[in-house]
């Protein structure tokens, strides 16, 4: 009986044993961090905070295009050089930040840091390269799943001008020029906007020294350029085939205690309503947990779901949220990513907070989160 009780009460820990870690703010404003892990791998993450340069109708999608171009490196062969060492590079652009990650064998840490440094150097691209990349971006747009458009719609409806999607569209990418991208790059990768974290089988002290050497010379932000263009609101945005509906509930930044309960409630509803997607992008400014579906009438059914049925989903919600929290941290690269995003924009955030939120998730907190999806403050969108 004792054994069973322990089993019922026990919970897996997602934290590695306490290993060396260090954080430092360089004089120019770049935040650097290193943490040792036991796995035979290293992951270097650079987060470029974009809160000081919010998306506008004029600039939407241009940072996304910049991301595509800048990760090619100065000679456009950065991927090739990294992969020759067994390293891989990935990048993502959101409303609040651009995140670039290089992961691979720990013996090639220097190459990974050099690759990151290269990305911060002033960009020089031709119009021909930009036009070609616009075609690739259009292919990416065509592959976007329905829920991404509903997610964007919910953010727009919930946050207005502060919720403009960073993805962009064909009309938006048309105005990109070498000068505009150079100006955006200078802002995006200026020292005060940068956070660089290294997690893996590394020695912390020499790693911090290498990071300091690489980024202490990164310049501050230059003069901001105003971007203007003819208004494009009525131009097609490549989303004509998307239909569906969504409910969004606003949550705070990453260190807000409400994220895990809200995700648990969303996951629980997704287990009850097949086809319902739960979407959340870690954010600095208030973000949103969005439930999106292509099935008509599901959001109404969610709102009308009896209290007792909602609360009965607690176990499912807790279990799936557990998997989600674990998945954010269970490998060095995933942990490095969420750690760096937190450092870049959520003061005092540590990934362990998410595990704590999970352990403190009670039926009453879950119930409160559930009810937020049907409250009058929730954002509702419908595309038919």
């Amino acid at each position, binding site marked *: 009986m004792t054994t069973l009780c322990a*089993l019922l009460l026990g919970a897996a820990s997602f934290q590695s044993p306490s290993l060396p870690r260090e954080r430092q703010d360089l004089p120019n404003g770049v935040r650097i961090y290193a943490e040792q892990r036991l796995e035979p791998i290293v992951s270097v993450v650079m987060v470029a905070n974009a809160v000081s340069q919010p998306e506008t109708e004029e600039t939407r999608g241009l940072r996304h295009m910049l991301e595509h171009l800048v990760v090619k490196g100065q000679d456009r062969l950065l991927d090739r050089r990294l*992969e020759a060492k067994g390293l891989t590079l990935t990048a993502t652009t959101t409303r609040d930040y651009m995140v670039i990650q290089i992961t691979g064998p720990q013996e090639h840490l220097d190459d990974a840091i050099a690759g990151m440094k290269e990305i911060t150097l002033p960009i020089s691209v031709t119009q021909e390269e930009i036009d070609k990349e616009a075609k690739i971006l259009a292919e990416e747009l065509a592959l976007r799943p329905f829920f991404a458009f509903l997610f964007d719609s919910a953010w727009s409806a919930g946050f207005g001008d502060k919720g403009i999607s960073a993805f962009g569209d064909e009309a938006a990418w048309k105005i990109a020029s070498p000068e505009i991208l150079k100006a955006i790059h200078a802002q995006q990768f200026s020292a005060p906007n940068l956070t660089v974290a290294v997690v893996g089988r590394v020695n912390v002290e020499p790693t911090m020294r290498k990071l300091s050497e690489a980024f202490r010379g990164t310049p501050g932000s230059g003069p901001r350029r105003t971007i203007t263009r003819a208004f494009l609101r009525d131009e097609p945005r490549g989303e004509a085939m998307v239909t569906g509906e969504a409910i969004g509930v606003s949550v705070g930044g990453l260190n807000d205690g409400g994220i895990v309960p809200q995700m648990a409630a969303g996951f629980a509803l997704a287990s009850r309503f097949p086809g319902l997607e739960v979407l959340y992008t870690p954010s600095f400014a208030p973000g949103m947990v969005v439930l999106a579906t292509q099935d008509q009438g599901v959001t109404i059914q969610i709102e009308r779901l009896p209290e007792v049925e909602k609360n009965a989903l607690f176990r499912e919600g807790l*279990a799936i949220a557990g998997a989600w929290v674990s998945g954010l941290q269970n490998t060095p690269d995933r942990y490095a990513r969420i750690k760096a995003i937190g450092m870049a924009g959520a003061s005092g955030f540590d990934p362990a907070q998410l595990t704590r939120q999970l352990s403190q998730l009670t039926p009453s907190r879950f119930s409160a989160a559930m009810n937020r999806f049907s409250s009058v403050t929730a954002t509702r969108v419908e595309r038919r």
Partner: protein
Amino acid sequence: MISSVLLSFVLAPQSAGQPRPGGSPRPITIIEVPEPELDRVVFQAFVRAPENMDARDQAAWVVLGNSLLRGTQIINGGDFMRLGSQAGIPPRVIVMGDFLRIELHLPRRGVDVGTALVEAVITAPSLRPEVVEEVARNLQRQRRSVEQIAINPLDLRFRDVTHDDVQNLYTRAFRPENIVVVAGGALERGQVRENLGRRMARWNPETPARLQRRPIIIRPVETTDSSVTIFELSGNPVYPGKPQSGARILALYALGAGKDCTLWRVFREEKAWAYRTEGLLWPTKNGWVPRLLLMRRATANDVDVIPIMREAILADIETWDEATLARASLLAQSSLIREFEFSPWWMSSDGPLTRTFEDRLAWRGYLSVIGADVPDERLLAETFANIDLPGLKEQARKMVEEANASFIPASPMAK
């Protein structure tokens, strides 16, 4: 109340199914991978699909997999999920064409509970008609993204699946000789073998007859329901450890894995045809099928794309040099021993295998299910040694020349 119910469940070894008169039970395969410092016990239970499944069987196989966790004759669905989620990760079933995989995580000291859950779900799932119907209905309603269709291009008609189909398929597939259980993590060597072996010892189900029905031909989906067309070149399976398997695996890396592969360089960077290209190794009972995928907005000339694709790939192979071989070898080693974001090894429709402990156990299970001589992925990495550039190019050319070509067109509405 619930504790006492669960306790009795855990302490009373169950043996579903009666011994066959005159027959002796055949043991299931159990593989143990102790890793004492891990904070959990992980089970990967594989079940081989029966031979010669037609389209109705294939759809029923997916319905069966998705119905398993909805309850057993020993423990109801809610308690199953509750017990199986104690390590913070819920149980799940991953259904592939030739096998399905039940994944369970338990906290430390969870071997007894884990083996009881594995026994219950394998030997006595309830498969109630209303559950099967609901699962089939939900699967039929599912709308898939282009990428999901590309990975799994079959048009399975879940609405045609009956409870009898699922029940019959269960009795044909869930038999001791078709089961491989890999258990790992916080356990002692011999613990699961003894515990689960004892529980399953008397399980010896009758050999069922196949339902007599008119077979249905398996068809690919007719359209992606989007503006994107999917193009695919699909090669012959690579059986781990067989001659040339190492060279063929490296050829797939050079052709389709990562950002400096042929597909990415030619079709994304040079032609700007695609955002998403994919080279993947898809698990079947015959080994890993190499698949080269290209997703591109529809044009008026879609029918011409496959020959152009094949020709452009073959031309690129001629430009490969020692750096190509070194890169492929390094990335393959990374995938199997460290971590590689663009790993081509898939064992679910959700994404490639990673280097998590769970996925490492899945590797062991799959290699055992197909009867490979190579017991784990680390040893598979050794088959990449001694491959030279001419050998790599020869296998790549062969793979592409012999590949089956197919494409799934965009929706006519989107053109």
